[in-house]
């Protein structure tokens, strides 16, 4: 049995994962119908709004390409600014999806089924947003492909010692695997929609992407093996991608960056922020699309616990950095951290501490964990706090490094802000399109956790060694 509820006194150990005791048909109906009926006016309004924001991104990037990176607030010493902060932040957010899909899958955390599709989609879109930044932040965008190892007439290879190159590999691999994983998970649901389709276009389009899924036993057998393998492949990636991103900093010699704690610290922070973002989105979506019985308060409660745990981890990392700086006896290192907390960027540091360490402590209270409005506010704070974490790491370390003569201060320009805000436009546009056209909840997997999936004479599920072994095609 899932241990997620085991410590919860008033949640029965065998509490149902889906409320209201729906039938398979109910699940298909409630998820599938969203993609089939005419979208509400609100959806159009939102898509219009966010697509405009995405256009702002396009405009900002166009201006950037025209004028150069000088339109941002960058300088020497702070040669990296919001672009890198945003990159790391979005990559971090992209962690939750694969974590939920892969690691929780391997750990048999069956409550994940309610949110995994959602989280995976978010991962894909977050990585798309993240990938925007390394592409555009270089000085000469027209030759950014030189970072790729490809045979060329110059006989030049990229510098394999550079963490930025590792980054290119890590993030692109992660994106590829996440996309595959998401798509493989979608196949049975796409088939369900295909079978429900009433128009020719829907039939053909969904038919193409459903890859001829029939829901046969043999297909299920292969499917599950493939899903398991992908989960196993994705699992190390969850850990590796942010570890590699952290190498961008840890491998340099800059005080405040040059820290061995960075890989685990970054991974914990990524999961933290990823869960916060999933929560933010899920809370809204379940309300609008009336999926409270599928994404239940119990799911949210469990995710809150994970956020609390990861908050403690990043809190530990923050204090550990100070300890190591003191213990190292390295004056530059010591200065870097004291300066973070008391220097020109102290405001950012204390925003980070407040949002990431102090505010999540409310989650110790079960009342908070089960209060939708409060947890929503907390997740917003965490999203902000995690952005500031990256801001503090990137900017405050650069602004005051070895040579006091070169110390500077970074002030963002309107283009920094617009580019960042624009990525929200891109993200939410993609997300809204996803909500509209694809099943936002993994229909087949949710069916797998219904009591009906494992019929016994006791009336509720017993064997949980297999999931989703249910005919998902027609019901």
């Amino acid at each position, binding site marked *: 049995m899932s241990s997620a509820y085991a410590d919860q006194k008033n949640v029965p150990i065998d509490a149902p994962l889906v409320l209201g005791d729906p039938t398979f048909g109910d699940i298909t109906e409630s998820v599938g119908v969203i993609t089939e009926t005419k979208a509400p006016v609100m959806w159009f309004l939102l898509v219009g709004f966010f697509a405009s924001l995405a256009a702002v991104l396009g405009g900002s990037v166009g201006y950037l390409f025209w*004028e*150069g*990176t*000088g339109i941002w*607030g*960058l*300088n*020497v*010493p*702070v*040669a*990296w600014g919001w672009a890198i902060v945003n990159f790391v932040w979005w990559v971090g957010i992209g962690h939750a999806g694969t974590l939920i899909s892969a690691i929780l899958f391997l750990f048999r955390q069956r409550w994940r089924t309610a949110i995994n599709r959602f989280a995976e989609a978010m991962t894909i879109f977050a990585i798309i947003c993240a990938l925007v930044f390394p592409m555009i*932040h*270089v*000085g*000469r*965008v027209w*030759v*950014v492909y*030189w*970072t790729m190892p490809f045979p060329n007439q110059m006989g*030049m*290879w*990229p*510098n394999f*010692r*550079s*963490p*930025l*190159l590792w980054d*290119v590999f890590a993030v692109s691999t992660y994106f590829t695997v996440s996309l595959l994983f998401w798509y493989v998970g979608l196949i049975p649901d796409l088939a369900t929609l295909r079978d429900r389709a009433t128009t020719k276009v829907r039939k053909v389009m969904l038919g193409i992407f459903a890859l001829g899924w029939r829901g046969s036993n043999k297909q299920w057998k292969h499917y599950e093996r493939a899903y398991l393998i992908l989960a196993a492949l994705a699992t190390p990636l969850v850990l590796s991608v942010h570890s590699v991103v952290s190498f*961008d900093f840890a*491998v*340099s*010699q*800059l005080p405040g960056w040059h820290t061995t704690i960075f890989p685990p610290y970054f991974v914990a922070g990524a999961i933290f922020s990823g869960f916060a973002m999933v929560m933010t989105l899920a809370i809204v979506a379940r309300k609008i699309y009336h999926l409270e019985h599928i994404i239940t308060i119990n799911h949210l409660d469990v995710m809150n616990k994970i956020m609390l745990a990861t908050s403690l981890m990043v809190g530990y990392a923050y204090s550990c950095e100070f300890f190591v700086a003191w213990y190292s006896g390295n*004056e*530059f290192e010591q*200065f870097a951290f004291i300066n973070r907390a008391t220097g020109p960027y102290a405001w950012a540091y204390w925003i980070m501490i407040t949002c990431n360490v102090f505010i999540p402590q409310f989650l110790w209270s079960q009342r908070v964990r089960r209060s939708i409005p409060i947890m929503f506010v907390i997740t917003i704070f965490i999203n902000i706090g995690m952005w500031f974490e990256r801001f503090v790491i990137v900017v405050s370390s*650069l602004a005051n*490094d*070895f*040579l*006091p*003569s*070169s*110390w*500077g*201060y970074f002030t963002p320009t309107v283009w920094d802000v617009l580019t960042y805000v624009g990525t929200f436009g891109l993200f939410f546009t993609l997300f809204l399109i996803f909500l509209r056209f694809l099943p936002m909840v993994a229909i087949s997997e949710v069916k797998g956790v219904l009591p009906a999936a494992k019929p016994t004479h006791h009336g509720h599920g017993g064997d949980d060694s297999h999931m989703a072994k249910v005919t998902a095609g027609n019901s």
Partner: protein
Amino acid sequence: MSSIVDNKEMTLSSGTPAVKQKRYWRSLDQLAETPEFKKIVAKEFPNGTSELNDPVSRRKFMGIMGASVALAGLASCRRPVQKIVPYVIAPDNLVPGKAQYYATAMPFGLSAFGLLVESHEGRPTKIEGNTLHPSTLGSTSAQMQSMTLSLYDPDRIGSVSLDGVDQSWDDFVKFWRDEFSTYKAASGQGIAILTESHNSPTMASLAKRWKKMFPKAPWVAYESVSDENIYAGLAAVTGQESLPNFHYDKADVVLALDSDFLQRDSESVIAARGFADGRRVTSEKDSMNRLYVAESLFTLTGGMADHRLRVASTEIAAFALALAGELKRQGLTIAGLSSQAMSFAGSKKKWLEVVAKDLMKSRGKSLVVAGRRQPAAVHSLVVAINNALGNIGETVDYHAAPDALFPNRDGLADLTAKMNAGEISTLIIADGNPVYNAPSDLNFAEALKKVGTVIRLGNSNDETAGAANWVLPMAHFLESWGDTRSTDGTLAITQPLIEPLYDGRSPIEVISLLLGGRETPGYELVRKTLRGVTGKTNFEAHWERTLHDGLLKNSATDPLALKVKSDALQNVLKRYPGQSNAVSNSNLEIVFYDGNLHDGRFANVGWLQELPDPITKLTWDNAVLMSPATAKRLGVDNTDVVTLKIGAKALDAPVWVMPGQADNSLALAVGYGRVAAGTVGSSVGVDVAALRTMSTFNFASGVTASSTGKNYPLSSSQDHGSMEDRPLIREATLAEYRQSPTFAPDMVETPPLASLWNDFKYDTGYQWGMAIDLNVCTGCNACTIACQSENNIAIVGKEQVGKGREMHWMRMDRYFIGEEDDPQMAQQPMACQQCETAPCEQVCPVAATNHDKEGLNVMVYNRCIGTRYYSNNCPYKVRRFNFFNYTKDTPEVTKMAMNPDVTVRSRGVMEKCTYCTQRISGAKLAAKKENRLVADGEIMSACQQACPTKAIVFGNILDPNSEVAKLKAQNRNYEIFAEINTRPRTSYQARLRNPNPELPSVGSEG
């Protein structure tokens, strides 16, 4: 060293008069013959096509430039077509792509700076000092370096004009012929000429002719910033006009009273060299000189001081008198000094006692100097003190200046009075910019309106040209023939490097024209003068030798045997400025000082605008400097705008708080706030004119300051002045050094540095390295501009500097040590350290920065994609990034200043110091052709070559006999951040101070 080439190459086709360096223009002339071109120019200048018949004018020049671009567009829509036209007759000795070097001399007030100018295909690109010339000794200042940029200034005027309507030189000559005969008949009644000060034999002979031709016409020389007071003070007690020559190298003890002899004073380059020679140590056994400085605003001289005392400029006079009194008390006879000496209490008294004692100990080996802004009386007293100490003839001597036109402020006042009285009907203003920088109570611009005809010879459409009738374009000194004498009398020839770009004539040509109504080429005038000096026998040989060397050998005059007259000193002391106007909280003083722009003449030189002031680190602005205590009392902080008032006159200016400034003393740089300097220099900073009158010309007390509540953004290149106790500039006293000679490397505990892999050995061939002796580096910034000129470094403007995007590869880090109000200052040149294990190289994803086998950290611009990671990972933050395409708007003419051996970087590329890799390659190629090794000293980096104190040494560190290896072997040698295993190739020699044990160390007094 590649500078002095042999005689043959050097001579500029000496046989032909008015040397035509058509190398650059010839091709364009031919281009101008093509029908397309003519059509386009006709289209572009419908009313000005007649210009084509004139020699190259500025408009035509711009037209050609514009047309060549337009042509490209017309001739083909796809691809720009550029015509390459070969020389019809190739100039002798010109190998395309190979630089040539010519000696010349830069006239500057009564000084002359011997230069060696690098020229590429007929365009001068780089200025170096002439090692033979006594005023530069091979070094340069930032201002001299920037002369190439001022030559290619697109804002220079291109044609003669009368009341704004274009005319030709012929028109002016025609006009003047009539005037000339009228004035000649009237013995010059009604005419006057206003020039800058000159020390030129040809100019002096013209002045003599002027006096003969127009006996009633005054010739006035005026300078807004000059040593006028020094000359006057000297003449007052010796009875003879002469020029001082200081020998700082011979002085063991130097006392500077409000004098910035290392940076801003007239002969700062040789002063810095001499001072450095007296200070340089090679081991703990050496001794070094001792410098005492009493000054109001922090200067580089104050930064080098072993003891610095903050004294308001107003109080320096009393301070000098008190010193004289103290010296007398200690037994020195100063004839003419009565017992009325002032006295100071407290720490100043103690300071004076100790300094006097030190001076007494080093009689004949000491030197007292006072700053140019101090009144003549102070200089008289200082001459008397030096005389009494036996320093005259030892550490200072005086040379006759028969050819000097001394600057004279009172002369300008007299002239203005005459103008106001309507006595002047024609005024000739040759160079200078009196409308901008004359004392404001003279109302010079108003007086000009009462003059019938104002004839102006000048560089640009500046303030004075705006008030003139005839405006004549003046040739730059790099375009004209001339001659100069330096302060010791050495005669040097100003040799043109290029034909006038803007149809300009030199001052001697124009004045000669004014004197006869006949045009005589400068070449003839100068030859005539030299013939007068050398005699006619063997003249051509003398002439060629002089052109080659840049100076006439053995032309320095013998020092004068001057007597200081006691009665004259008594007279001076009778009118001596008293102590009564001592500054206080209610009686502030304002000090006007000259910064990078000198008197404002360099306002349109972008390099100098962007060059951070060595002390304040401000760029593109001047500001009211005040001590932290004064700022606190006034309730203002950096960038707050204050209103300064002297009586009814008021001026608004932003505040910049400067540690080390004397309390209640404010300082403001002159030369800013010009309204018609040009595209670069107009409306930059504030004009001091409102407060600067005849009586407040140098400094004045009785100033009040009040906050306006407004704010004005200032761009500084360095925001943080403390070293945060990091061992960056390592410093000790001479005594401490003797006790622990390896104090510098010992300051940091370097752990055993291991490497994960087998390091490259760097043990064969050339291994380049650099050593910078901080003990003699004054922080004068010459290296910064030399580097900028050599390496085509872009200027980015005030806003970009404010954002922290300045591009200087070589920068000067300035740190304060000690109390906020009265700190010590130290300067550290910082450029790429060429780390053997460079952190930047590892992180570049595309391998655009790599190491070569000679230990250079090389940068491949066309591989760089601009991730800026390498800047982040550089502990020294010496990499510079092209955030925008900073070179996009470079005017065509300014592109001629670019060094063709160095890539001009575009947007999105990281750049940094390369140890002047182009010079290294050039020298290696030359050596290879001669089948030899590059000799030590053959390659000089641009910064090294410019450095007045020879603090920077570059060379092969594997050669134990090289200068650089010897410096690195010294026990003061240390590398910055060696402990993080970067293994920099640039190392520093620690700084020493030589404080007097009888005084508390610097920073704790005052």
